[in-house]
């Protein structure tokens, strides 16, 4: 009875050869840790459709939502490292483990490339009395606890980013009160309805209300002017602060990917990023275009992670 090991060997060989020689041989699953229809989902769907053409096999987007992104990120990490499961990783990966929600960090993935970055910007009502961001900070300092801000959940990325900015500027971080909101859109609505005084978030998120003349942006924390609103002063110009925390999206795979598959995917992701279709899509939607090659992407995640940890610890959000 020798057929059993023999089939096993054949099976192994065929799988091995197929995997090595002509990856991909079957459809690829692209995990998105956020809901269908959101910003991350729409970026994922366009990237997936471009990857599909390049790789020659279907790339199926699967939304695995829940636990503020933990469930979906976990699904990517715990998939088999065979190149048939990849997914979108987002800025929250640098925060969740500080809160004790997961053990995952950016280092739990094989990075394939950073494809989007949107810096922190501060938005107020159009009729708000502040001339500029400096003016706003004066009011904030003079009336501790009076100004209310919103834009994410308690301990969400924009909350932490804004707190970090204040502490870099040596302003007490209890000078404002954070009102948690389910999404940046909900925070902006509350801003317009007069419920809060400012919203921290990205320009694409505030875009429709800025265009409608209901909201204006005071400052954007980036080294270069915003693609959408180039007239908005940068953090360096107004308060001399270089600040690199914002919302980003990248593509990752499980650890221990076979080298040749990793190289193939990295090339495909880079090609998709450079494609006219992706560039046009991002410009239309107003999302920030920024590329970081896998090694730089990993380094960026590490720095951001350490930075976020520090800020979160200072405001008692860590476990």
């Amino acid at each position: 009875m020798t057929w059993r090991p023999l089939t096993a060997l054949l099976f192994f060989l065929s799988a091995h050869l197929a995997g090595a020689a002509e990856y991909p041989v079957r459809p690829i699953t692209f995990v998105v840790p956020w809901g269908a229809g959101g910003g991350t989902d729409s970026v994922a769907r366009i990237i997936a459709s471009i990857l599909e053409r390049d790789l020659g096999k279907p790339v199926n987007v699967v939304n695995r939502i829940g636990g503020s992104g933990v469930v979906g990120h976990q699904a990517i990490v715990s998939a088999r490292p065979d190149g048939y499961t990849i997914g979108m990783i987002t800025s929250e990966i640098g925060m969740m483990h500080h809160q004790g929600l997961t053990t995952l960090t950016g280092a739990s993935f094989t990075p394939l490339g950073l494809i989007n970055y949107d810096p922190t910007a501060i938005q107020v009502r159009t009729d708000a009395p502040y001339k500029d961001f400096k003016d706003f900070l004066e009011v904030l300092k003079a009336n501790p606890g009076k100004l209310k801000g919103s834009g994410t959940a308690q301990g969400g990325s924009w909350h932490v980013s804004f707190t970090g900015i204040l502490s870099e500027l040596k302003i007490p971080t209890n000078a404002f009160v954070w009102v948690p909101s389910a999404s940046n859109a909900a925070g902006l609505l509350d801003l317009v309805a007069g419920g809060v005084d400012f919203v921290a978030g990205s320009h694409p998120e505030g875009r429709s209300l800025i265009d409608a003349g209901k909201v204006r942006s005071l400052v954007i924390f980036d080294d270069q002017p915003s693609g959408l609103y180039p007239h908005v002063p940068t953090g360096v110009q107004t308060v001399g602060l270089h600040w690199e925390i914002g919302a980003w999206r990248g593509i990752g795979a499980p650890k221990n990917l076979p080298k040749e598959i990793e190289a193939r995917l990295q090339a495909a992701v880079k090609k998709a990023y450079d494609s006219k279709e992706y560039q046009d899509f991002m410009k239309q939607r107003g999302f920030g275009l920024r590329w970081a090659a896998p090694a730089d992407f990993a380094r960026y995640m590490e720095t951001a992670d350490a930075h976020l940890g520090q800020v979160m610890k200072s405001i008692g959000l860590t476990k």
Partner: protein
Amino acid sequence: MEHVWQAFELVFTPYVLGVVLASALFGLFVGSIPGLTATMATALLVPVTFVMDPVPAIACMATATAMAIFAGDIPGALLRIPGTPASAAYCDEAYTMTCNGEAEKVLGAGLVFSVVGGLFGVIVLVTTAPALAEVALKFSSFEYFWLVLLGLTCAVFISPGRPAKGLASLFFGLLISTVGFENPAAYPRFTFGSEQLMSGFQLTPVMIGMFALSEVIRYAVSNDTPLQPIKQGIGRIFQGQWGLMKQYKMPVLRGSVLGTIVGALPGTGADIAAWISYGLSKRFSKTPEKFGKGHIEGIIESGAANNSALASAWIPALVFGIPGDSITAIVIGVLYLKGMNPGPTIFIENPQNIYAVFIVFFLANLLMIPLGWMAIKTAKNVLRVPRSVLMPIILLFCVVGSFAINNSVFDVGVMLAFGLIAYAMEANDFPIAPTILGLVLGGMLEQNFVTSMIKADGHFSAFFARPIAGSLGVATLLVWFSPLFLGWWRRRRAAAAA
């Protein structure tokens, strides 16, 4: 006027009409499959629209969602599985009517009054969008808090004859809505270290379990002679609908108006509109005692409400780029992609495109009549299937539906667990609809209460300080205490007369 003609030219091309028809069929299919929601239908259409011009792209989404919300009524009425959350409010009532042999009446009414509500919402969208959007922008957490409380009050109205048990069921729903990490303090509650529980209990698996699975269990354990399949098919579904329309003029109007308002508010959508409408319908009905025993009135009112909410959700979306519900959130992304940036200027920059979208809305609602009729005709075959065959198939649908929502086996477990809980509840005469209502509104109630208190630095008086919030608050308190007051007044009058 010139723009209107241009718009007609944009819409009435074979390509656009073909897209509308195809997406209508797609919407009907998705809506009638439990676990596939109208939101999912829209998200699946996004990659398809990449290759289209603006008008067909928007047309395809508007049509598919309108069809999906109507089609959600079909499995609700025939199998007691709400096809979409928007049908959950009156699913029980509709199923009771089917069991009473009135399937054609209830499905016909669902179709006709979906169209009526839908058209009403579209007319409001076309005529008053900018003005209504300004009002919607005045809603902050204080206003939403009162609105949610009003919605919760409906639990009392939807628990026929046993308000205490209805209240218990509602509080159970509120309790399970607290599970998870997505609360204002962002602190994991009742998660027992499980990553799956961090997102709390998702509405769809709970809903499928409580409505559909419990029915399967009840069938499996009952010793009665099995129900005979209903012999007569569904014939003339439109018969008698005009009579209903005349008889229930007020409920239809009230449902359409309420649906339009709730839909236009950015924080609430078609499902909440249907719940509140159903509650109001019973509250103001001349025959509230008939509710829960297979009465068409509430179905008419809330069926109109959920479709009108669907159209009016586009009001803040088009005027300010603010999503009125999860569907329009996706649509806004597509609008940007197609260069039709939402904002007050959308009516000035590309008027022919926006008029074309309006025309498509009318078209989609009118197309619902023949296509909905076909869908009902096809679906009626379900009634011919013997129950012993049908029940295992429903079970299969329950499993597939709850898996499909998030591709997760955990949700299948949630569905099974809540099916058992619902079976136990109904066996002891506890209504299950209030539990679903509690789960739908619990998160919003907490979020709006806590954020309001943070904003007001802990002063409760702030809930009455803003004009709209104050009025809503007084209205809510009146609804709560008017029965007490009226009772006292009547007793006093009786005493005075004696």
